[in-house]
């Protein structure tokens, strides 16, 4: 078993074996991150370009650390500072980057499917770091990794994803990921934030937080994307928080050893109460640590599939 891919575009077309291989490999890279000298020479001489058309600190930093711990050179290409503001198309920007002999392009873009276009047209390996409302595969992989580390197995695990399901690429990637690995996935949120026919992906839909959380082993809170709330999906943040903010009282409904996850950055008091975010059930910071290891594993595997 090995991974022969040039690009990582989404979880949807990954096999269970490929996912397992990435998670196993990430374990070795976590060991590297735990050393005094957190660097191995594996990608020496390779260039990784972080091409981010949306603001992101966490994901970009995580990819940057992952690449640097593998000894690759990293260039951060942020949209505001780039020639995109001068009218250049995505493809031209990417071709220019490739002309500088980049080996990996880590792309975050507001348009779903844009990494697929680049992957088809470029020699460089493309890693999707979030494309519109489509997928965010490395987030799902690090969530899988974190849960496997804590709960050992996915089979029969009950996971509730809570929040704006419709606009969340994290939710979509995680639905693909966890259903593939044999977990039971619920989605919880207001009807205005629930995509039509989401059941087709093999999930159960709940509109009431209490009901959705009953007996679950893992609660994955999504960030309320305050910057995207131009359209009225709910009357006010206060009302949203009253109905969907995760509090200690909700935790009592879930399994006693239930874990809380969040892709960050968290809006304290909006989707998650501070007491919950800071409680021992929270694995939010483990997710961040594991993100670097998982991204190292992804870069390692894609380095071969040319």
């Amino acid at each position, binding site marked *: *078993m*090995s991974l*022969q891919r040039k690009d990582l575009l989404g979880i949807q077309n990954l096999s269970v074996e490929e996912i397992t291989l990435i998670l196993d*490999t990430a374990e*070795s890279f976590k*060991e590297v991150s735990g*050393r005094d000298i957190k660097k191995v*020479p*594996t990608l020496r001489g390779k260039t990784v370009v972080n091409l981010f058309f949306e603001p992101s600190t966490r994901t970009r930093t995580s990819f940057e650390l992952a690449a640097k711990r593998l000894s690759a050179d990293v260039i951060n290409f942020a949209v505001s500072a780039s020639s995109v503001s001068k009218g250049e198309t995505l493809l031209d920007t990417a071709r220019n980057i490739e002309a500088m002999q980049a080996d990996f392009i880590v792309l975050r873009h507001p348009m779903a499917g844009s990494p697929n276009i680049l992957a088809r047209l470029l020699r460089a390996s493309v890693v999707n770091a979030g494309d519109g409302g489509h997928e965010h595969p490395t987030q799902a992989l690090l969530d899988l990794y974190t849960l496997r580390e804590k709960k050992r197995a996915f089979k029969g695990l009950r996971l509730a994803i809570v929040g704006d399901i419709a606009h969340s690429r994290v939710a979509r990637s995680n639905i693909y990921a966890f259903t593939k690995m044999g977990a039971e996935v619920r989605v919880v949120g207001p009807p205005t934030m629930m995509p039509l026919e989401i059941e087709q992906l093999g999930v159960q839909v709940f509109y009431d937080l209490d009901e959705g959380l009953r007996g679950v082993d893992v609660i994955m809170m999504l960030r309320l994307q305050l910057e995207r709330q131009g359209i009225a999906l709910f009357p006010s943040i206060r009302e949203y928080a009253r109905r969907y903010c995760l509090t200690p009282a909700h935790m009592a409904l879930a399994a006693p050893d239930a874990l809380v996850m969040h892709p960050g950055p968290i809006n304290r008091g909006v989707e998650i109460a501070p007491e919950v975010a800071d409680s021992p059930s929270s694995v939010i910071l483990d997710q961040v640590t594991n993100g670097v290891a998982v991204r190292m594993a992804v870069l390692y595997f894609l380095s071969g599939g040319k």
Partner: protein
Amino acid sequence: MFLEGFFMPMNANKSERIVMDAQEITRALTRIAHEISERSRGVAQVALVGIRSGGVHLAHRLAARLTDIEGTTVPVGTLDITLYRDDLNARKEPPILRKTDIPFDITGLTIILVDDVLFTGRTIRAAMDGLMDFGRPAEIQLAVLVDRGHRQLPIKSTYVGKNVPTLPNETVEVFLEEAGASDRVVILA
């Protein structure tokens, strides 16, 4: 890939010649253990690091013998050299990565790298680079069960079970009980 030897008759149409049997392996390891304790005047400052995958079981066997001889336990670690290989760029797909586990501080110790077969020396170069990322050992020594020659780097073993002259295109395989086979070293030609 690495499972070939177990599940597929990799040597189906190759002839197998035994160059060390179980007893010879046992004797060689016992002698190496004595040489280690003699050279380091005991094992107080000695630790063993087995190179994946061939050196891991041998490192544990050596550690057990050193305990018999010296009456103290010797720390044993495991090193995967994959991330330090010099042929990653030349490969179509990256090799499977295994865990490195060195649960002690190597700084100031005499580290004995353990591998089954010493051939080109490239694995040992990678292992030394990997080891240095964990600290600064006082000394690195090398123990191998078989030295088959054909070095491509200026590397020499400190302890050898047996020198076995080979042709470059021959394959030397070490089978051990811990991996589900009876102890033997064979040349496949």
